[in-house]
């Protein structure tokens, strides 16, 4: 792998390092679908925060196919490509009666974090 030199800084910063993957992977869900997050508790890396585990929400956007961080942290390379969605959770679903009035959360969820829920 290259030594970072002055000459390549500009290109590296402007080019970035997208975790988007050019893989043909079918989405499990579409905008409007009701989903539930899994209740997982791995000791390894995950981007599923505790406060949204085991909660019900609705898919609002499909962002396309990205590497799955839980796998990439183990392999050291972009791994396990899958769809990422914005999922909307109502405040009451996350915080019960202590939720703010008229507030909700949008968070990016990988297919591996989700299962279908009753609408």
């Amino acid at each position, binding site marked *: 792998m290259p*030594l*970072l*030199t*002055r000459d*390549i*800084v*500009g290109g*590296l*910063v*402007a*080019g*970035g*390092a*997208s*975790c*988007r993957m050019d893989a043909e992977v079918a989405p499990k869900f579409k905008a409007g679908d009701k989903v539930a997050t899994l209740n997982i508790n791995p000791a390894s890396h995950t*981007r*599923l*925060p505790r*406060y949204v585990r085991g909660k019900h929400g609705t898919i609002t*956007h499909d*962002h396309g196919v*990205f590497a799955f*961080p839980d796998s990439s942290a183990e392999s050291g390379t972009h791994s396990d490509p899958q769809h*990422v969605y*914005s999922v909307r959770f109502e405040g009451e679903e*996350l*915080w019960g009666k*202590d*939720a*703010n*009035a*008229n*507030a*909700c*959360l*949008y*968070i*990016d*969820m*990988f297919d591996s974090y989700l299962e279908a829920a009753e609408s």
Partner: protein
Amino acid sequence: MRVKALETLLSEKGLVDSSAIDTVIELYETKIGPRNGAAVVARAWSDPDYKARLLENGTKAIAELGFEGVQGEDMMVVENTDSVHNVVVCTLCSCYPWPTLGLPPVWYKSAPYRSKVVRDPRGVLSEFGVELPDSVEIRVWDSNAELRYLVLPNRPAGTDDLSEAELAELVTRDSMIGTALVAAPAS
């Protein structure tokens, strides 16, 4: 001193060129900051077609103005309206759209902000001096994956005659995170 020791060791092993680190620092300190995001917002306020492209594909529309790259590879722009207010956080670390906003302020990376804004966004907005009626829906965006979010603030009243450059002057960093509103120009 610990940092100096690490950089010296990496340099001795041929793994770091210190002049490249100088270049990285200079690039961010001079070229990459919230004025970039403000230019995007001002363009969206001035050009309805651009705004439509921006909301449809944030990454591409932002790149039209030359802003792209590390921590802005995949952008989504969310629009504030009279009935919706958006605010952005990263509860797990400190993900932030570098090409448009630069590097995040300490408060954005801090435990108080990251812990509270998802549970009590109205309380956090109040700490920033923003009070919104319950009729306005608050949407908190937790950027936990590789999407990065930029808030398109509400255009203030009384700015119809301003040029795009003048509009950009009004747009603050915090208004594009969602912890502030854009104030009308002092008359």
